């Protein structure tokens, strides 16, 4: 592996650990500030939202297969299926559309 990998891994693990360790080792007082509590509550959703869209549309070989996967993932997530189920079903939809584009459409025309 390249040195960049090791440096990034060290930074990743170090930052994640320090965030968990410092408050546990140092603080004894409880956070009362409502804004900070709410901000920390919303952060994971805001992060994942920004990471997912529009990037999801460019995550496969074509926008069409990605859109199909996106649709399937939204419906199954709304039905509150598990993480692995949603993820793999989205992959299945992508695969189905990719196969159609690559094999079925050229064969028919």
């Amino acid at each position: 592996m390249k040195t960049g990998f090791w440096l990034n891994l060290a930074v990743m693990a170090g930052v994640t650990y320090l965030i968990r360790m410092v408050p546990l080792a140092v603080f004894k007082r409880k956070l009362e500030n409502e804004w900070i509590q709410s901000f920390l509550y919303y952060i994971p959703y805001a992060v994942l939202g920004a990471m997912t869209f529009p990037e999801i549309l460019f995550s496969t070989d074509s926008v069409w297969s990605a859109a199909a996967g996106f649709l399937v993932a939204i419906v199954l997530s709304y039905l509150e299926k598990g993480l692995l189920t949603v993820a793999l079903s989205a992959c299945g939809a992508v695969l189905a559309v990719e196969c159609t584009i690559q094999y079925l459409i050229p064969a028919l025309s």
Partner: protein
Amino acid sequence: MEKEMNTAAGKLVVNSFRLGLKDGVPIGLGYLSVSFTFGMMAVAAGLPVWAAVLVSMLNVTSAGQFAGLPLLAASGSCIEMALTQFIINMRYALMSLSLSQKLHRSVNLLDRILIAFCNTDEIFAVASSKKGEVGKRYLYGLILMPYFGWAFGTLIGAAASSLLPAIVQSALGIAIYGMFLAIIIPPAKHFRPVLKVVLFSVLLSCIFRFTPGLREISGGFVIIICAVSAAGLGAFCFPVHREREVG
């Protein structure tokens, strides 16, 4: 009723290693499927199997590891990595802070430093749900199964993925985003402010992605700008009154 409670200095203390181990089993099993997905994603992103397992064993965090994956695979900027991890894992600071109030005084600095390594959402949630204070033996027991479940799931996910044909591996590119949707959509469905925060964050992310000039800003920084703005505005407009489960 808790069988393993002892009284010390008039306070209830949960401090049984075996009880911790038992409480950790369902968490560990739950982690298998998530870390299995991470293992597959990591290999799809170009990491070798051992590197995927190493990432899991050193980080023990789902969202942070998924978010860090593109940067790890591309050997991207480590400032971006630090900021991304800081933003996405900031919630742990609050959990550690809260857990620190819950620890029995016999839990010394060295124990705190070790326990912090594994303070995940679920471990925090289970430890917080105990009546009274918690001791170190309970916490070490609680951590064990989830930690190995997380590492082992990554290993089998990564190993399974390397055996898959190329077209399937390429379809796996969407899996990480499918998983993100599975994390954010259920709470957005039940709690309207989450939906608004997510949609605002997505709107900002689209603006950055498609506007000439803004488009050149690196992805990691865009996520931080979007997330901090959306969560900040959300906290201002819709303050959360009680501590909700953060997942």
